[in-house]
């Protein structure tokens, strides 16, 4: 085919005719003033089951800052009424659900725009609600299952009568699309629909994507506004959308909480606000769980509480006159020829206080100033053998009925000083490792001292070779009833403190194992 060339010859219109035509156009426009009054566009919308009047100004350069809405009714000749909730507002819409309540009435609104006190512009229109209102689609959700889809359309539990009349006769359309096939499920809206309702789309094709849209179709079948499509792909074993999303949300929430918690701990540790121990306390050491549950019961041992009564006697010049009053008034430590002074300690067994007699125990004290209860004078008639004696003064010669002079024992001294108390009895802790005590033989089976009655008992310092009383051997852990032995021994614990280790006073061997320091 040959190319056809087309020559277009334009005959220009005469310039005068053109001018006349243009003039006529301007004249017509002038003759017919713009009755649109449309500086703005008014729209009436059903949104969330509310009647909403919105406006939009055409000239955005002269957009007002505030708006005020008036209205009148078309069927009556009335003055404009102001809408109180929409006076001097900045938003460009107004809820008129409770203002325009007559279904067949024609309402004429007037929107006036202000900027400060200056009226910029006004625009008006009239609305017949059933005719001129557009329906926005309702909110909805879809839940997919293996063989069906639930479409949940949200309706409010109640809405005004005007909304009910507007919706009456219209149709709620649920549009379903899958693989190019469109299906519409129409439901007439009759009466007041209260609350949400669910529509089920069944007979699904597996592994096929389904998209759903919901909208209202008014009676006029115009002004239909469809919602955006929501799509879902149902497949076997699929859980509901809501439960799956809830699970995911829950997992994310737990994860975030854990991260925040750990981060907080790390930050606090880093700034030194808290200190985390690297090792568990022993109490929480569950490795020896069995031992913790079933603790090994200690072997029973004979333990008795002993009340040591410290008696300080002033140094008394040996005289052959025994005056008990003096002994009561003066607690003069007994002097022994060696120059030591003994302080008598009255020991009373607390567990056998009723039947016990007080046994005076003399320890090595050097406390001439200490006020100590007077130790009773020993009864010369009493047999010497069962008398417990704190020391066996081996250095003495012959029996005597006086109290021995106390020997120096710094440890005991300190203890005595620290336990000065009120009354005649002083209870203090005595390191048995540094004290020699004696238990009578008849009570040798008992792991305790037998007490004599009162501190008035005289302590006899007997000949070591005549002493048959047993000694209470102090040990580090338990006080064991010593076996009676002929030779008395005073066993010292190796840990016994001794400030007199370098003293000039050397240890005096009293014989029979007694050692006095």
């Amino acid at each position, binding site marked *: 085919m040959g190319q056809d060339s087309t020559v277009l010859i334009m005959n220009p219109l005469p310039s005068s005719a053109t001018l006349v035509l243009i003039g006529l156009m301007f004249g017509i426009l002038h003759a017919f003033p713009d009755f*649109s009054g449309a500086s703005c566009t008014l729209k009436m919308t059903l949104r969330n089951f509310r009647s909403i009047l919105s406006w939009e100004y055409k000239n955005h350069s002269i957009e007002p800052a505030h708006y005020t809405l008036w209205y009148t009714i078309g069927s009556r000749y009335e003055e404009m009424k102001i809408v109180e909730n929409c006076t001097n507002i900045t938003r460009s819409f107004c809820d008129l659900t409770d203002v325009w309540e007559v279904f067949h009435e*024609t309402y004429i609104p007037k929107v006036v725009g202000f900027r400060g006190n200056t009226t910029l512009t006004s625009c008006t229109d009239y609305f*017949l609600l059933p005719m001129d209102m557009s329906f926005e689609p309702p909110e909805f959700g879809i839940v997919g299952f293996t063989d069906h889809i639930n479409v949940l359309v949200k309706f409010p539990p109640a809405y005004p009568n005007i909304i009910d009349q507007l919706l009456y006769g219209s149709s709620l359309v649920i549009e379903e699309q899958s693989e190019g096939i469109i299906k519409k499920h129409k439901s007439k809206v009759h009466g007041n629909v209260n609350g949400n309702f669910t529509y089920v789309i069944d007979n699904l094709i597996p592994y096929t994507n389904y998209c759903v849209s919901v909208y209202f179709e008014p009676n006029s079948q115009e002004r239909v506004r469809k919602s955006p499509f929501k799509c879902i792909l149902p497949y076997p074993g699929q859980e509901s959308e809501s439960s799956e999303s809830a699970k995911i949300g829950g997992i994310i929430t737990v994860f975030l909480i854990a991260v925040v918690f750990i981060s907080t701990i790390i930050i606090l540790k880093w700034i030194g606000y808290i200190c985390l121990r690297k090792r568990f306390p022993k109490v929480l050491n569950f490795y020896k769980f069995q031992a913790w549950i079933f603790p090994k019961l200690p072997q029973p041992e004979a333990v008795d509480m002993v009340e040591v009564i410290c008696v300080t006697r002033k140094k008394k010049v040996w005289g052959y006159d025994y005056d008990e009053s003096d002994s009561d008034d003066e607690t003069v430590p007994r002097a022994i020829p060696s120059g030591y002074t003994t302080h008598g300690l009255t020991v009373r067994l607390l567990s056998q206080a009723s039947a016990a007699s007080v046994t005076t125990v003399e320890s090595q004290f050097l406390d001439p100033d200490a006020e100590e209860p007077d130790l009773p004078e020993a009864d010369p008639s009493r047999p010497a053998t069962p008398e417990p004696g704190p020391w066996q003064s081996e250095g003495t010669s012959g029996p005597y009925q006086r109290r021995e002079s106390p020997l120096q024992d710094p440890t005991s001294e300190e203890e005595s000083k620290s336990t000065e108390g009120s009354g005649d009895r002083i209870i203090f802790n005595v390191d048995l490792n540094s004290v020699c005590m004696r238990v009578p033989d008849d009570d040798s089976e008992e792991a305790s001292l037998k007490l004599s009655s009162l501190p008035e008992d005289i302590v006899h310092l007997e000949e070591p070779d005549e002493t048959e009383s047993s000694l209470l051997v102090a040990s580090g852990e338990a006080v064991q009833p010593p076996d009676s032995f002929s030779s008395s021994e005073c066993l010292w614990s190796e840990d016994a403190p001794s400030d007199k280790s370098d003293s000039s006073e050397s240890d005096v061997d009293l014989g029979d194992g007694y050692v006095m320091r």
Partner: protein
Amino acid sequence: MIQKCVCLVFLVVLFITTILSLDCNLLNVHLRRVTWQNLRLLSSMSNSFPVECLRENKAFELPQEILSSTQPVKRDIKEVFYEISMQAFNIFSQDTFKSTWEQKHLKQIQMGLHQQVEYLEQCLEEEENENDWEKMEEDEMEHSGAAVPQLGNLELKRYFNRIKNFLKDKKYSRCAWEIIRMEIRRCFHYFQKFTELLGKK
């Protein structure tokens, strides 16, 4: 050959006539469709209502009691619709030069109203011819009873007379036409309910 052509033409004409005649049993469907069409036309004739025309507004007092007071029978509904269609057609056939409406829109509404009038006339005549004896009984009831359709038609006539007088007084101004357009729209929509009643009966 000629006979075949004649038969064919006869069938076509008959077919067209049948289609065009419209079954009066589907009156409610037809009326609903036509009324909605006319309403949309009235809405599209103008973009907005002029602000300056508000001060010329008038209350025409549409007789709403026609629907609210009684439960009109089917024939009464047809007669009311016929009266409305006829009156509206007469109004829009007057001098509308000063209006700002587009001519095509004006022509369309005139044609729609005319079609509505003709359809209702046809259906009313059919009913009258087929049920003469029933009509006589209804006439007796109408005379002895409330005489609702006559009263209703009378109120409707007065209503449309007010509209005509308003146009005349305002000298068929643009504002007058806008106000009338708004009122006729309201009137059509109000009586749209009749179509729902026709469908139920």
